[in-house]
């Protein structure tokens, strides 16, 4: 059976087409202002990548911030449930998922069946979201890809005002002005991010293995710092882009729905 998942996030939209346990095709695009259009586009791209027609898809579920706006799906599921399912698929040993997306960060604990047992989401402040890293990367004049690597090259990472994206920004500028290296400041950024996430992960009561999903899982600096803070090894999905986890989860839940199991 072929199913699909479409995850319209605050920053990016993702779609995945699944056949059994095989990803036939996937796509990631920037979301911006029109979720309907973004969903359509990313879904079409995924279908094209999979080389199939929309009619071949037995069931497609939507998730993410814009899920209520996706016209072609047969139902929706929360991001929490989808990331959990996606993480299970990508890393079958996962019991805890840390998902850092563009506008929030969530930690979810699952039971053996992969059901959500407890979750926490940061509602406080944008510090601790992917957007925080984007803003910082911009000031540091590096790409998102490069930001993660800075940590490795740092000698003495700075301590950053981590309570607020914008305040941290002021701090970053102040540090650069006083001659700190881009590596040390960049590492400070990654550490500040990790510190916020660690608190969340600890509060949810982590059980091993811990799997990280969402775009920020691609930032090595954050992942390493987080491992250090949590004293634990973090599993980063290799089977597919971790940013796709939500969409994959939606596709899996779509399959369950189509098979009449749950949902």
């Amino acid at each position, binding site marked *: 059976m072929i199913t699909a998942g479409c995850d319209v996030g605050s920053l990016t939209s993702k779609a995945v087409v699944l056949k059994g346990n095989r990803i036939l095709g996937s796509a990631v695009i920037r979301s911006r202002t*029109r*979720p309907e259009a973004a969903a359509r586009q990313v879904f079409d791209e995924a279908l094209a990548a999979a080389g199939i027609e929309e009619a071949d898809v037995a069931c497609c579920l939507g998730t993410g911030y*814009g899920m209520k706006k996706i016209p072609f799906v047969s139902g929706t599921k929360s991001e929490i449930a989808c990331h959990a399912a996606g993480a299970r698929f990508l890393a079958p040993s996962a019991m805890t998922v840390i998902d850092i997306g563009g506008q929030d960060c969530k930690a979810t604990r699952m039971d053996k069946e992969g059901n959500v047992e407890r979750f926490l989401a940061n509602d406080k402040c944008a510090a601790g979201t992917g957007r925080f890293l984007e803003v910082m990367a911009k000031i540091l*004049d590096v790409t998102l890809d490069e930001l993660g690597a800075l940590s490795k090259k740092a000698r003495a990472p700075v301590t950053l005002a981590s309570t607020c*994206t*914008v305040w941290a920004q002021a701090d970053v500028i102040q540090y650069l002005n006083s001659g700190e290296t881009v590596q040390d400041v960049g590492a400070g950024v990654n550490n500040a991010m990790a510190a916020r996430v660690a608190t969340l992960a600890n509060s949810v009561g982590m059980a091993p293995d811990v799997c990280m999903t969402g775009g920020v899982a691609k930032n090595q600096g954050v992942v390493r710092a987080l491992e250090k803070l949590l004293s634990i090894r973090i599993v980063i999905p290799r089977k597919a882009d971790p940013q796709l986890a939500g969409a994959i989860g939606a596709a899996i839940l779509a399959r369950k729905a189509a098979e009449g199991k749950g949902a």
Partner: protein
Amino acid sequence: MIVLGVDVGSLTAKAVLMKDGKIEASAVTRASANPRQSAQKVLDLLFEQTNIKPADVVFSVGTGYGRKQIPNVSLTESEIACHGRGAIWANPDVRTVVDIGGQDAKALRMDEAGNVVRYSYNDKCASGTGRFLEVMADALDVGLEDLGALSQKAEKTVRISNQCVVFAETEVITLVNDGAEPADIVRGLHQALAGRVAALAKSVGVEEKVAFTGGVAKNMGVAAALAEALAVELTPLDSLDPQLCGAIGAALLAQEKAKA
């Protein structure tokens, strides 16, 4: 006598050359991560426009976030003092200055002599800054310069509940998704920003006349909302570019020091 004022802010670098108390040339450029480079860039732009040579400058003053990193300036001064000085030069009746730049908003009050008697910064959130508008302009796919005009087309105001830049961005995206008119949203954003900054200004005590400076002052929508929130009329600084106010203040100070 030729003097120079350089203002390296968080988002833009500005420079002004003054000759015998008149503005000879000015330049604005986007600041990079390195303030020294930004300063150099804006100075290059500045001297390109005139046949005055750097060597002709008798005194220079640096200000702004990156002031400590500006090469070869004779003196540095805080942007608070410079904005005050610039505004009172443009209009001697000005007593309160509201400055909204890229990174922060400030309000200051001066005595007749232009000494700052009180000032305050925006509180711990970025909702009252130019950065807020930049992010929103981006999210709405509107040019920064066009926000002001757009807000004047608004028929109603859409309230933005999040103060946080990052969360407000998502909220704006959702609003657009829900079919709200960009113009109405922009007016809501302007009111939100003006409301926060008005609170700041009121906490130092608003005394007429009030001038509005900094890059955001170029946005008529914010200016209108600020005037409304403060219930005063903003005093226009004639033809002076509000974004240059700090650099002008720095140049004025340079002139003063050179004379002394």
